[in-house]
């Protein structure tokens, strides 16, 4: 183990970060409008289309694309492939921020944001959403605990609070030291719990739509939906790590880490292939391929999802040459990430058609601003944290096997 994560020594306010701040401001304005005029003031949601962009992207896709956290934890910590240790921290940070922003997105979307704690008190065990909510809540706490050692590593013995807070330096440092003693001994519990909780809610997110058989298009409505959601979440975990690592290392001019990313995506060939087989097999068994040439928006969305989100990038990954090319690997992984994103949007938005009112839905500008603002805020906080905490690997660090 020679990899070493460290705070990056780079200027924080780059032009890119300024752009993020502007998008965040626009999103903040839209969120303010939502809490002044109501959801109906900023969105196109209706009686027949109660879930839209916010659930499809901020929540469902947010959860799926944060899967890098538990998949890398499984790889490096449970089956002990320490070779991949270098990507665990960035993936963990992505998951921490991803889930945090899922909850922020939910606070905007649910009508009574102040009542978000009520599922803790009022349990409905028949509700799939109840199970998802419990798992997401527990997993968010697990993620914070998994992230805590990074904070401890940075500040232990160096606590230096500003101004009058300085009197707390001693106690805070004591707490960090205590955490440093206890956490390593019990962390294995949280790592396993994180994987278990992830498997539970990643699959159950797919079960959410099983209660609406008349509304979800048959290309997506299948009793296998939970399995498809689970396998696609697991399959997108490493591509998301590649996507995010390539973006981060490029924009921060760090080592590209291809020595880790190339073998990492070899596993993806199997996982994505399994997903493709399940998806196509399900289509063949249920005979839903008859819809493929309908040329409606829905069936076209399905074809785009499977063709460009699964089949093409899978074929690309099959080539060892392409997997060794930083650019080609990034393109393939971006397509896989996009494929899962489109899948979640398709299941929750595009494929959802209420048969009685046949109501259409297209997100309003206010909904787009909220979603874009939240994503910008996520990237902004990511940038801030890697600047000051040891998450990314130091440049010129040789990664050995």
């Amino acid at each position, binding site marked *: 183990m020679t990899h070493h994560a460290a705070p990056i020594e780079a200027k924080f306010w780059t032009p890119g970060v300024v752009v993020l701040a502007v998008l965040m401001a626009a999103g903040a304005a839209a969120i303010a409008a939502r809490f002044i005029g109501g959801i*109906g003031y900023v969105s196109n949601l209706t009686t027949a289309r109660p879930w839209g962009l916010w659930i499809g992207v901020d929540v469902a896709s947010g959860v799926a694309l944060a899967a890098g956290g538990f998949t890398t934890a499984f790889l490096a910590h449970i089956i002990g492939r320490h070779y991949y240790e270098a990507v665990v921290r960035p993936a963990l940070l992505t998951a921490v921020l991803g889930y945090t922003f899922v909850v922020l997105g939910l606070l905007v979307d649910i009508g009574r944001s102040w009542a978000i704690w009520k599922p803790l008190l009022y349990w409905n065990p028949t509700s799939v959403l109840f199970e998802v909510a419990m798992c997401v809540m527990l997993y968010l706490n697990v993620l914070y605990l998994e992230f805590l050692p990074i904070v401890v590593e940075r500040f232990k013995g160096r606590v230096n609070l500003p101004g009058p807070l300085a009197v707390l330096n001693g106690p805070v440092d004591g707490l960090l030291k205590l955490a440093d003693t206890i956490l390593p001994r019990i962390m294995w519990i949280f790592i396993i719990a994180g994987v278990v909780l992830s498997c539970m809610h990643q699959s159950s997110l797919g079960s959410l739509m099983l209660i609406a058989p008349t*509304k979800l298009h048959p290309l997506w409505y299948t009793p296998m939906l939970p399995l498809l959601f689970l396998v696609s979440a697991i399959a997108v975990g490493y591509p998301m790590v590649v996507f995010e690592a390539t973006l981060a290392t490029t924009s921060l001019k760090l080592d590209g880490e291809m020595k880790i990313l190339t073998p990492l995506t070899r596993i993806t060939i199997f996982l994505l292939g399994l997903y493709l087989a399940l998806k196509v097999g399900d289509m063949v068994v249920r005979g839903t391929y008859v819809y493929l040439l309908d040329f409606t928006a829905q069936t076209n969305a399905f074809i785009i999802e499977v063709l460009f989100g699964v089949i093409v990038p899978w074929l690309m990954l099959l080539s060892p040459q392409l997997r060794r090319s930083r650019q080609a690997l990034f393109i393939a992984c971006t397509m896989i990430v996009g494929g899962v994103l489109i899948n979640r949007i398709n299941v929750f938005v595009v494929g959802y058609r209420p048969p009685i009112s046949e109501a259409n839905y297209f997100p309003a500008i206010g909904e787009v601003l909220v979603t874009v603002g939240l994503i910008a805020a996520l990237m902004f906080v990511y940038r801030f944290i890697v600047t000051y905490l040891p998450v990314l690997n130091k440049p010129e660090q040789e990664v050995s096997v």
Partner: protein
Amino acid sequence: MGLNRRDFFKFVTAAGAAIAGSNDSAHAWQSRAPSDPIGCLVDLTRCIGCRKCEEACNRVNALPPPDRGFEDLTLLDKKRRPDERTYTVVNRHVSGEIDARDQLVPTFVKLQCMHCQDPACASACIVGALTKKENGTVHYDVTKCIGCRYCMVACPFEIPAYEYHDPITPRVMKCTFCYERVQSENKLPGCAEICPVEAITFGRRNDLIEIARQRIKKNPGRYIDHIYGEKEVGGTSWMYLTGVPFEKVGFNALPETPMPRLAESIQHSLFSYLWSPIVLFGMLGGIMWASKDKGDRADNGKEGGGQ
């Protein structure tokens, strides 16, 4: 852990199989529908589209006044849906049927919550704010609601509406089956009470099915031989009789399986007694323990491997 690796997997496999097996047989999905619920039978061959039921509903539920008065029948020219200010609406459908003087015969259809026997909304509701009461009402308790709107996603009749323009305390709005009036005051629901042509018959659901069958039997030329709501989605408390095919007057064909059945069965077989998470936790723990060849557990668990 005193087990060796092989024993551990043997144990996990056996335990998993035992639990999975017992689940299949012992916990098959069961309806939680009340056995003798109240209901309403709407006879579309009787309805004259006077909108009195809409007016009564508005009054007894203290809903906001409508933009246009209830005597304004031009509203029938447009297909309406119940919304956050209106629990029930009447629509006029023209099926193509003509009378003796070559005039198109309209069919008026009253829409409201169907009060399903196994309601999808109540199964879906994250906090159990929606419940099927013993008397048959699908009841909404706003004090539990968090506004996730999963009930609206789940409802096969697209009924629950939402106060989208209330920023802080919006409510799900749908027909209450006049729960208080019926339960405490022993009155009829507002709409059933006022209907001047007895198009709405209030009673015990089982009796209503019998009445509907009698009407069809006595007058087979007048009715289509189908009680909409008797079997749809496992049965609903509100049911309909019609003289023209249901699909021509806005009713969609629905499966007879209760909507919650599939999702509840899957959830139950996977998560009863949390057996699958526990087994998975055990398996992963076993794998983690078995994979830890180098270094001690503390080092394995620590993020970044410690150095």
